[in-house]
């Protein structure tokens, strides 16, 4: 947990990461809000806020009396949303940094191709 963003947003993001990685499979149950709170050492109300963000987005849903579950299609939904933001979150800063260092777009494209081949 860092100070740069709201804690509840970080909780939501961590859960999303776990869904994408498969650690929290679709239609599987997720830990309770209290368990999240204990794990992250945060106030349960904050953990609840983070979980509710995902519930509102339809990524998690509640089964009454049992708990919270990952919705079907959650992975696709999260990945899709992140793909939309990829450009502004990663590409734009990359271009800005490259410009600062005097790297033009051709050189940049070559760098990307090289790294892709090696990875």
């Amino acid at each position, binding site marked *: 947990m860092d100070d740069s963003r709201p*804690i509840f947003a970080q909780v939501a993001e961590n859960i999303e990461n776990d869904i994408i990685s498969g650690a929290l499979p679709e239609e599987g149950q997720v830990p309770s*809000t209290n368990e999240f709170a*204990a794990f992250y*050492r945060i*106030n349960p*109300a904050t953990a609840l806020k983070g979980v509710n963000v995902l519930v509102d987005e339809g990524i998690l849903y509640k089964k009454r009396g049992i708990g919270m579950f990952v919705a079907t299609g959650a992975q696709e939904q999260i990945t899709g949303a992140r793909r939309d933001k990829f450009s502004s979150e990663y590409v*734009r*800063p990359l271009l800005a940094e490259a410009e600062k260092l005097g790297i033009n777009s051709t050189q940049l494209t070559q760098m990307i191709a090289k790294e892709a081949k090696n990875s």
Partner: protein
Amino acid sequence: MTSTIEVHNLTKRFGKLIAVNDVSFSVTENKIYGLLGRNGAGKTTLMQLLTGQEFATKGTISLFGQAPVENAKVLQNTCFIKESQRYPENFRPKDVFTTAPWFFANWDPKFAERLIADFRLPLNRPIKKLSRGQLSSIGVIVGLASRAPLTFFDEPYLGLDAVARHIFYDRLLEDYANHPRTVVLSTHLIDEVSNLLEHVLVIDDGKLIINEDAETLRNRATTVVGMKTAVDTFVGARKVLHRDGIGGLSSVTVAGLNESERRDAKAAGLELSPVSLQQLIIQLTSTDTKEFEVSA
């Protein structure tokens, strides 16, 4: 939502000293509140007023809808743990844990047992012979195991080392999650408890200067760092909470920035630094940083 505590225009004077100055606020039930401020700001006095241990000079207090002074019905449901708690002559921790249940209807002996083991408290050693940390842990255990609907912790963990303090925070969170109750935690070690709090009350020199939801407060500020000109351009007409600088470098704290503003800042080559709750409160109370550093 019910108000567990309601305070209106509360003032407490000790001779010429105004310890609590026209304070008004309310505490909603079953939340963890942080009562933050410098040493001597008035936190202890405020809590003593709330629990009827001190008498107000002016103003009103109501706990669970009634005035707390000499009110057994109300006081039975409160637990006030303070750091300077003195115990009767020859008492051993064992005696404290035998007598506490008589006064707290919700006392959980199994929980107390677990905490005694967690804090490694020797039950039979006379309290006079205990270390400061062990002494503090007695209060902490009573505060947690009492499960009182309204529990005040007045820096009772000052004597505890860092490990013990984190045991306290963990047990508090866990038990609060399973047995919700209203908790008011006073401290000047803000960063340590920052994530536990749901609502923040900051007292400075007897006055209530901040009364806000913790999450909102946390995101109130960001520090923008970079070359002076670039920073000034970016900051523009925004309200500045704090300004610092060295050479051509400038560091300015402004009110929270949204996602696109953050991207703009980064694009302008500026660095964004988070502002912790502790730093924010220091800046808002214009206090010396030393006061808030970990003393343990």
